[in-house]
């Protein structure tokens, strides 16, 4: 019996067995193409096709959207998504590409969308046929999300949208976007509204998607520019002026703290991909010569590596303890730490790996002599994307200080 199973409900026990059988029969094995590190880093149409077809088959088998009602294309189960995902992770299947759809758009549309929207959008979201992206950040609205300036002007049942969104992962593949915008310029928070808008079908008709290049030189993010894009009022979620509250539902799930949070499912990457863990850094240290010895013999590096091992273990244990009410004084205290801890952990681990590699850390992706094919400097730089995106580390600490500790707001 695995750890997870010990506490399964009867429904979960049965569903777990079903998932396990299905995965065994349908696991695609090691992929022939090079897969990205995460869904957000899908670079080619080939990668997308491969991952979309995997999500579709998993959806058809009932492993996606398990906890949503059947009327919206879900499985009608209770707390079973976690079970499916645990099995997918355990079996190292590929991940699903529609990660913003599943993680953020689905719960938001489900809680705030009309019945018609739910029934129309959610099935193709779950199946991965429609990729979703998120239109929140703008050049002038980063940490201060509520200052978004993208504006929708009403005429009858139609809204005309103008504005500029940045950091929209997957936008170049997306059919749909969840979009936070302004319908009233006189109120900061109450002037916000929330829409779902078509992207791929409107390229050149009010929508422009342009790649943003990261400091690493990679693409992946986009900027999306709206120029007189017209959408129907039927695409609005919840009431006019309630955009901020709807966005909170999205962010809650993004931070892994919502009721319909979809934990990571699957984890198959190509062999070439580096896992940013203390274990990988230890392997690097064992394979790096330092004078007459190995870097792994250096007491200072050992100490730094053990600090990371301990933080990683603590991170895992936090997730576990969060589900034991008797060991939690505040219900959100651990959940709201998740993003902050994971991203700073990755940043520090890659910084240590660079110190382990020494001058060889200067070698990048195109150098055959580079340790781990140059992916450690890549990981270190990308870690700043993680400590900045989706609420900087500074904003995360504000949230924790204000919502959990009850300290005065810092603005």
């Amino acid at each position, binding site marked *: *019996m*695995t*750890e*997870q199973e*010990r*506490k399964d409900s009867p429904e979960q026990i049965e569903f777990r067995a079903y998932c396990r059988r299905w995965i065994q029969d349908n696991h695609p094995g090691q992929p022939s193409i090079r897969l990205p590190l995460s869904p957000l880093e899908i670079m080619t149409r080939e990668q997308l096709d491969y991952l979309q077809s995997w999500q579709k088959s998993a959806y058809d088998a009932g492993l996606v959207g398990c906890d949503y009602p059947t009327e919206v294309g879900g499985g009608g189960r209770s707390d079973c998504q976690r079970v499916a995902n645990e099995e997918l992770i355990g079996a190292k299947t590929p991940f699903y590409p529609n990660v913003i759809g599943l993680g953020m758009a689905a719960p938001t549309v489900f809680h705030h969308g009309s019945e018609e929207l739910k029934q129309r959008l959610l099935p193709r979201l779950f199946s991965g046929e429609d990729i979703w992206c998120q239109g929140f950040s703008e050049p002038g609205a980063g940490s201060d999300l509520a200052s978004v300036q993208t504006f929708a002007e009403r005429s009858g049942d139609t809204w005309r949208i103008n504005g500029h969104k940045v950091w929209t992962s997957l936008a170049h593949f997306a059919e749909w976007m969840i979009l936070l915008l302004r319908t009233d310029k006189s109120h900061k928070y109450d002037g916000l509204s929330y829409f779902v808008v078509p992207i791929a079908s409107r390229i050149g008709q009010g929508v422009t998607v342009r790649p943003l290049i990261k400091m690493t030189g990679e693409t992946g993010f986009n900027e999306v520019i709206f120029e007189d894009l017209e959408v129907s009022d039927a695409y609005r979620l919840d009431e006019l002026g309630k955009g901020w509250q709807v966005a909170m539902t999205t962010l809650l799930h993004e931070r892994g703290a919502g009721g319909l949070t979809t934990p990571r499912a699957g984890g198959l990457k190509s062999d070439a991909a580096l896992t940013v863990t203390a274990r990988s850094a*230890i392997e690097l*240290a*064992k394979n790096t010569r330092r004078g007459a010895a190995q870097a*792994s013999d250096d*007491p200072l590096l*050992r*100490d730094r*590596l*053990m*600090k990371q*091992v*301990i*933080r990683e*273990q*603590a*991170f895992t*244990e*936090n997730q*576990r*303890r969060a*589900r*034991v009410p*008797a*060991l939690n004084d505040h219900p959100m*205290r*651990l959940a709201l*730490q998740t993003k*902050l*801890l994971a991203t700073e952990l990755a940043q520090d681990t890659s910084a240590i790996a660079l110190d382990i590699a020494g001058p060889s850390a200067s070698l990048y992706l195109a150098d055959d002599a580079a340790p781990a094919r140059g992916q450690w400097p890549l990981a270190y730089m990308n870690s700043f994307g993680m400590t900045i995106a989706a609420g900087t580390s*500074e904003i995360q*600490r*504000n949230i*924790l*200080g*204000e919502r*959990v*500790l*009850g*300290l*005065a*707001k*810092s603005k």
Partner: protein
Amino acid sequence: MGQPNNYGFEEEAAYLKESARRFFGDKLPVNELHALVAGDPNPESEANVPWPTELWGQMVELGWPSLLVPESCGGVGMPWVAVAALLEENGRAACPSPLLCSLQSAAVLKACGDAGTDALSELAVGRAATLACLDESASLYGHSVHLVDGKLEGSAHFVQDAEKAEKLLVLARVVTCEDEPPSSESDKVALCWVDADAQGLSFKRNAIVDLTRDQARISFSGVSAQVVLQDAAAAWQSALPALWVLASADMVGAAEWQLQTTVEYAQQRKQFERPLGFFQAVKHDLVNVMIAIDESKSLLYSAACALDWEPEKALQLAHMAKASATETAALASGRSVQCHGGIGFTWECYLHLYFKRQEHSQRLWGDAAWHRSQLAEILI
């Protein structure tokens, strides 16, 4: 065998934790603790060790010192996670008592198997015990007490709450001929059970910073000893993770008190027409303390659970727990005083009780760097 998702932290453990928190809150509010232990501020005066003996009597009645004692020996036989929870509350109250050292003694006795039964039965009836096992440099392997022809000779250092204990559990090197050269790590060691008022024993009380504990050097000169286990190296070794887990629990609880007390101050105290907590320098510092506590707490319960369910993992998880709790204690102590500003630096403010208790705990039973170096030996 894996660990249960909920750490095996069942209702009885939750009840114990809850009632311990109420007990300390009712019986030992921090102002009373301060009045009891901080009466004489003069740092140059002789050590004085007031402690709430009546409270200890009530703790004995509640069966706390015998929680680890199996029912067969007259104890309660609770899981380690429950005991960790109790000690978390003990630390939160900064309670001066022989609870921690008695439970640590019980941990070692349990590791002795049947041989520990008699001594455990004594613990079960409420006799406080403590460990006498460290040498002058606080090494776990120095063995500065020798067992010669059934008598103890030498001295044990850093004996915790020595004046509160009725019994000593002494780790002694077995010497067959008295003028043998000093021991090395691999030598044979015995565990002995000795009355704290035995003939030939002498206490040299340490003048320590911590006001909530006492500490002594104990000298043995021809002390008759009841040998619990003649060849105790393996038992001793296997008990170490439990000692660290129990020590960590106290630190985690104390750190939570430091956090909550400072958070309350940051909510109430105003400077520049704003509550202190408005300022990110204070807010983010306190969030960092919270994060550190949560990491330590999660590791604590994981290590305690390993003692219950997955003993083969206990050693590495206990290293992690003590390393983490030590760093957390240092951070929480420093930030709690700094964020309080001037008032936090005074004797009248209660913070210093916790600051000093944490400083004491940080360097006992291995500091953070030592635990990480041991962990590296396992994992690299």
